[in-house]
């Protein structure tokens, strides 16, 4: 596998959706290519940072209005 092959398979590799043979092939390339190691590492960190961050927390007043609306509108629905 070359560098372009790593880009083509990057999403499947990060999602662990690559078959074992292709993953091993990709990892052999990573062993010898610092550039691709950095691409894989920083892209993985990009996903992790978004996954772990809470940039849009649910405001307490919004949460309270949601539960009030559900109670008022669904309390009579069934």
């Amino acid at each position, binding site marked *: 596998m070359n560098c372009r092959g790593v880009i083509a398979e990057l999403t499947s590799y990060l999602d662990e959706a690559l078959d074992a043979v292709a993953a091993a092939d990709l990892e052999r390339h990573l062993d010898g290519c610092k550039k691709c190691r950095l691409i894989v590492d920083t*892209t993985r960190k*990009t*996903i992790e*940072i*978004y996954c*772990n961050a*809470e*940039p849009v927390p*649910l405001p307490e007043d919004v949460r309270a209005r949601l539960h009030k*609306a559900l109670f008022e509108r669904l309390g009579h629905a069934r």
Partner: protein
Amino acid sequence: MNAPNAKPLPSTVVRDDEGALVAAAKRGDLDAFQELVSRYESKIYRLSWNITRNKEDAEDSMQDAFLKAFQHLDGFEGGSRFYTWLVRIAVNEALMKLRKRRPNQISLDEPVQADGEDLMPRDLQDWGPSPEQKYERTELNRILTDAIEELDSPYRMAFVLRDVSELSTEETAEALGISVPAVKSRLLRARLKLRQKLDPFFRSKPS
């Protein structure tokens, strides 16, 4: 900020008792439904906000999504996860809200790519072990929000559903009504574009 080295996780949002709660909610048990709402409200709000980019619209579409979910619970047959089913409703509600507000601006079709578009990142540098810890929470949130906001809608939707809302690739395809290869293609571009946008903030040695 927690668990900076955690891997992207496809199914942490499901708990064992979910089936029982859904069954109770189907029988009209509002308390069971409120429990389900409490589990997913933060995720659904974040999803709604990421689509509508507006606090008021996010709140309205989240409320509508939960109301609709309760009213249509009979149609949920358990073939998919409850969360996936809920996300699909929330995506539809948020898109409807968005189209009403900006009828001519929303396209979920993939933007036309220049022939031979080069996705290969350049000028690479290490980010260190926990790059996000260089920033206070407020500043980090601003960086992350600005970066994702600059993505074209099709890329943003794929990233938000797959990587932020933790759907599988197949579930993302189903929710967006596109093929699995299309999701993978959009996801690759979204991830690489976000990586590029975050790079100046997180590289170990600022350029």
